[in-house]
């Protein structure tokens, strides 16, 4: 069966994962820096 393709779904999926990763990077780094300061 042929897939029905909506290219917007691809770009939205891509952008969401990208945004999640960028956010994770910033929050993770902030938490590590805070912990280092405490140590």
């Amino acid at each position: 069966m042929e897939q029905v393709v909506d290219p917007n779904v691809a770009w939205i999926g891509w952008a969401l994962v990208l945004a999640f990763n960028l956010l994770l990077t910033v929050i993770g780094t902030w938490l590590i820096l805070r912990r280092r300061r405490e140590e």
Partner: protein
Amino acid sequence: MSGQFLNIPTPTSGMVIGSVIGTACLLIVAVALGLIAKRRWKSYDEFLVGKRDFGPWVTGFALCGAYLSGWAFCGSTGMVYKFGFSGMWFGGIWGLVGIIPAIWLAATKTRDFAEKLNATTITETLGRRFESKGLQTIIAISMLFFLFMYSVGQLKAAGGVWYAVTGLRPFWCLLICIAIAWVFLAVGGYTGTQWFIAVKGAFIGFVGGLLSIWALIYAGGLGKISDALMAQKPALMTLMDRSLPPVGVTEVFSTYIGIMATPIIFLTMAIGFPHNVSRFLGMKKLSNRDFAILIGVVFVVVGIPNMLDCSSNGLVARMLFGTNLLENKQWGADLAAPMLSWAIGGTGLMCLYLTALVGAALGTLSALVFIMSANVTRDIVKLWRPQTSDQSLIGMNYFLIALFLFLPFYWTLQNPPQLLVLFMGLAAMGLGSIFFFVTVISYYWRGATKVGAMLTVIFGTVFALFGGWAVMGRKPPLLGLGTTEWILITGCAITYFGGSLLTKAPSAKLLDKLFPPKKAEMAIKPGLVGE
């Protein structure tokens, strides 16, 4: 070939001269760095790890350089060109969040453990962390085996693309490259290698970022890319292409199990690769500001090119070339990134790209070769025959560096044996899965034992070999690449934690030295301060 799309250009004198000049400049820089670094080491220990005084800029760029191999720089774009969006988007984006946790988890700990244990290699750090010469030897052999497999493929893409772009046989280009690599590895030691990889990391980050942003602008934005690809083949614009076979390598593009495995593959590879973690061995003690700079450098240099290489670059190449590149049976999709650079930026950008690709391959190969030679001299010969003189060990290193550089060169020109090709397939995944636990988790878990680590190394090595056959060797494939990764990582976790929980941890004296109580705990138990 379809006339509607661009075709591979015939090499012109401009392409040949530009590529030769670019590569020559890169190699001159490499030799110069090696010669300057020669003055910075006096002993065998300094040859292996420098003076442990590298700051966040050099360490950050070197980490990017070790991580961004020829495959990451060129192969990922080729995958997306061939399979469309489903090719690499998920893994590519997670690649960014893979290398950043490598800094979070491994940077400070690698430096501190190595310094406390007076160790000069990752393998030696682990041997001393577990108080086991046997484990150190097994890790050295396993690491040597995997890094060797991984190193064989490093020059392949660069050699192929060099030939396709310039029309010159890659023999002389690659031979000169490995001769130069020997100079900066042997003369410059760890310092020369770290400097070269750092320069290469900064350079390919710049070229990769430039190409990616330029390609997006050239294509006219995301909407234009969608329209062009939907007109070619709508399946190129799906996040998961169910029309591809659900077993074998394509499982990671066509099933949920496969797609969900890609972040695990990229995360464990970034954190577990010994050539990545080794970049922290020679690092100075970082302040908070230094640590933030280190994260920032890697985020910018790896993040932007990696995300776009694994998504829009391949799509724009497909938009411009259609399937014409796949009709080149010898190099096929490997040509996607260099041809994209030619299509959007002409000869100048293509020569810059080719120079960066040669640098990418050479830099990662150098990082691998330096560890492999130290695996033999430091982690096997010096460990079991401590009376061996430093001079003999350095001489032995010179020879092994030459040998480990020559073999990938030879197998780039001659097809490697079929068995080797199968093992190469899963070498990176095996390395990542094993050393994610054995190295990084062991920095944090006091309860880890040498038996747990040893079982993980044995299981990971055996299963990675089996996986190479099951995914790539058997026709039809027995397993998908994603399923194999899940089994590999779960098996390594069970052997590591299970083996450790059932056996005795290293001495309390060693563990107290490596895992000192935190300030908060010391405040609760003041008696600890004086101990």
